[in-house]
């Protein structure tokens, strides 16, 4: 019985999981770096029309993945604006590459990074920042040396949320990925294709792997939030 299960596990192709993990790590890293200044700006800047920018940042939350996916195929393609710029700079194509799905999920996960970061930045005691300014630190230095270290748990929460969101991404990747093995074929798509090909056992095993991983990360988020 045991050995039979073992061979079944071995018959599953694990490469899509590796791609999923790689995608989640890359997107999380990129997004935290990009979202931190944006969140800082949204947390403290005051200007007319701020709510317009805030709504724009949150738009991926309210749009169906199909809408985002449809436009991304057009914009990242060889005739789209992003695709043409990319091709001029690098000589390669952006769509149907690993980097292409990183761009797609970065855009798609943007609110998941910005919202927790903004909340964390707003929780910081203003007096801390004022002391930093009084002591002669520049805005950038204050951001890097006072605000960021004091928002560690918020940054971690944002990172984990983005990470989980990327692991679960499906619709956008289905539309822009092209399902290239080892490149854009992530686990969620591999499961979908296994179901379509009537490989239910393989689909079941892969699905089963998702639950403990996602659960463990959610527990971790809880922990960090309580620590904050």
């Amino acid at each position, binding site marked *: 019985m045991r050995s039979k299960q073992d061979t079944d596990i071995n018959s599953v192709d694990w490469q899509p999981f590796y791609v999923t993990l790689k995608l989640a790590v890359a997107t999380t890293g990129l997004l935290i770096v990009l979202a931190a200044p944006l969140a800082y700006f949204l947390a403290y800047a005051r200007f007319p029309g701020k709510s317009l920018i805030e709504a724009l940042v949150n738009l991926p939350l309210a749009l169906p993945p199909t809408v985002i996916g449809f436009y991304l195929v057009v914009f990242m393609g060889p*005739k789209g604006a992003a695709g043409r710029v990319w091709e001029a700079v690098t000589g390669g194509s952006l769509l*149907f590459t690993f980097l292409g799905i990183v761009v797609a999920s970065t855009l798609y996960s943007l609110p998941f990074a910005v919202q927790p970061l903004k909340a964390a930045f707003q929780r910081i005691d203003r007096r801390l920042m004022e002391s930093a300014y009084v002591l002669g630190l520049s805005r950038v230095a204050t951001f890097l040396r006072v605000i960021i270290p004091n928002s560690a748990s918020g940054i971690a929460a944002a990172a984990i949320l983005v990470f989980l969101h990327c692991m679960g991404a499906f619709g956008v990747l289905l539309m822009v990925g092209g399902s290239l093995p080892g490149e854009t074929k992530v686990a969620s798509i591999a499961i979908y294709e296994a179901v379509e090909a*009537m490989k239910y056992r393989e689909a079941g095993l892969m699905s089963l792997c998702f639950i403990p991983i996602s659960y463990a990360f959610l527990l971790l988020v809880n922990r960090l939030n309580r620590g904050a």
Partner: protein
Amino acid sequence: MVRRSGCGWVLLLVSVLWLIPVSVSAQEKLNAAVAANFIQAFTEISQAFERKTGVKVEATFASTGSLYGQIVNGAPYDLFLSADEDRPARLNREGAGERPFVYARGRCVLWSARKDFCRARDWRTALRGEDVKRVAIANPETAPYGTAARTALVKTGLWEALKQKWVFAQNIAQAFQYASTSATEAGFCAYSSVMSDEGKKGCFYRLEEAPAIVQSACILKRTPHRAAAEAFAAFLASPEADAIKARYGYQ
């Protein structure tokens, strides 16, 4: 108090309306699960059928693989129009479907939105072109048109030789979408999509090396509208339906 009860009436009215089916007419309606390549032809055929009999046929379009999955899991369709022979035969063996019948024979083509793509001597030379970086193909594991395209590519030795060019679409409609938005330079599509308005803007090669895609259909045993389903099955083979199918390149 009065205001309150007024509110209650509105709530009650809304919940009652919620329960009424959207369509209250007694018109009979069929639900068909239809393979994505047959979209345009099916829409015309079902309209002709409705004009003739008054029975409306609503279709769900998806890849053959996912429709099969839905049916096995109890989706309430009356008919299944597959893009292969295998899955209706399976449903028949498993007891979910009646005896399958062939309703169309489709052809696989290599289509591009760029007219200059078709200046090459043949499709094999066109595919080898330096500027052809990506070519969309429907997933050969699940989409019959993808399987046919792969057969032609394997036969001509291009499947391995040009491996880095293939981009896999979930079904034949997505393969066409990738090619028509120029996300890929070309795509293996159904002959039927070449006949659409969008398809006429581009150009295509016939794939003689690809086998014809024999598409069969079956009535599902769970249908409560057996007579109407049988009438539609018969209509699918009528000269009127054949003329529509021919217009979309089916044989």
